[in-house]
């Protein structure tokens, strides 16, 4: 629902990261990581990105989204697993003392700029 705001934020960070010696260059690709549990719908983000990128150095850029799986670790019995459902109960000991190893990412990792 807030993908437009996220897209605008990505574009701001990307534009600010273009090196000074490539000031007029076009950004070809933006690489981001989105966790499975992040409240972001990749399709909506692609759509918003396309619109928000118009008239910026990212006008022709591709938004490359790497989806990060939800990985959980039980802090009691130390078992780790990749969860396909949002269930945070330990698979082995049924305990509820777990931590999320990955799945909440919403990170911009790099941009690829025309050289």
């Amino acid at each position, binding site marked *: *629902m*807030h993908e437009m*705001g*996220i897209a*605008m*934020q*990505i574009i*701001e*960070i*990307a534009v*600010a*990261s*273009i*090196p000074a010696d*490539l000031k007029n260059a076009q950004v*070809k*690709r933006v690489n*981001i990581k989105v966790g499975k*549990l*992040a*409240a*972001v719908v990749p399709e909506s983000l692609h759509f918003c990105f396309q619109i928000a990128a118009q008239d910026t150095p990212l006008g022709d850029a591709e938004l490359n989204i790497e989806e990060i799986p939800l990985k959980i670790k039980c802090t009691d019995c130390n078992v780790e697993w990749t969860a396909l*459902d*949002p*269930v*945070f*109960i330990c698979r082995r000991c049924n*305990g*509820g*003392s*777990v931590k*999320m190893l990955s799945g*909440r990412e*919403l*990170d*911009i*990792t*790099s*941009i*690829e*700029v*025309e*050289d």
Partner: protein
Amino acid sequence: MLAFMYKNQRYFHHNDFQKPHHSHDRGGGSVGGKNRGTREIKIVRRVLDVNDTIAHQNRELFREKGVFVINVMSSPGSGKTAILVKTLSQITPKIRCAVIVGDICTSNDADRLAGSGAPVVQVNTDAFGGDCHLAAHVIKTAADNFNLDEIDLLIVENIGNLVCPAEFDMGENLRIVVLSVTEGEDKPLKYPLMFRVCDAALLNKIDLLPHLDYDRETAVQNILKVNPQMPVFEISAKTEEGFESWISWLTQKLHG
């Protein structure tokens, strides 16, 4: 009642707050590896780190001033305002409270909450369908309306939405999610991030249970699947059933 409008100030440019911490390298391996004639610039930062930075500043300010902050979230119509009206009537004036209430439009909720005598700030994100959540910078601005030295508990009633508010830290101490028995029992599984990031759940409108085919056991189990250690309080804002344990939990956290 204090009121102000939040006019689409949206997101700050990150240079306004901190130097970008990315590196620009022409590193042989990564250049041209993916696309000929392109240079890859590593960045590695959270997309929402401007929000996170302000949230951190808010948290520091509130800690310094001795203000405990709770962020109350739910879908629209689950009874957040009614719960807060009843909660305020039970804890004020012993606990000095203030409220920030977020809505896309109208000041109806602020009007209801102002009856408690607590200072209330209404934040409207946009007159015609604005932001779907409150972000840290909005709380920072809204909190300027209060004398924080005279507040023990700041309650933020977020915009009715089970998706977006979960993603935005505001600098709060506790997050509370409200689910009502007129919604589906599977809401926690449909909106797991919300139930995962919260510290307590209020299952509201239990006075309606005799009239509904609602399986409260399943609802509670679904909350606990997503967040096995989360306390769940079954309450009715109408009859105040269950309020004793909710209020005692809240005040214990406040004084703890």
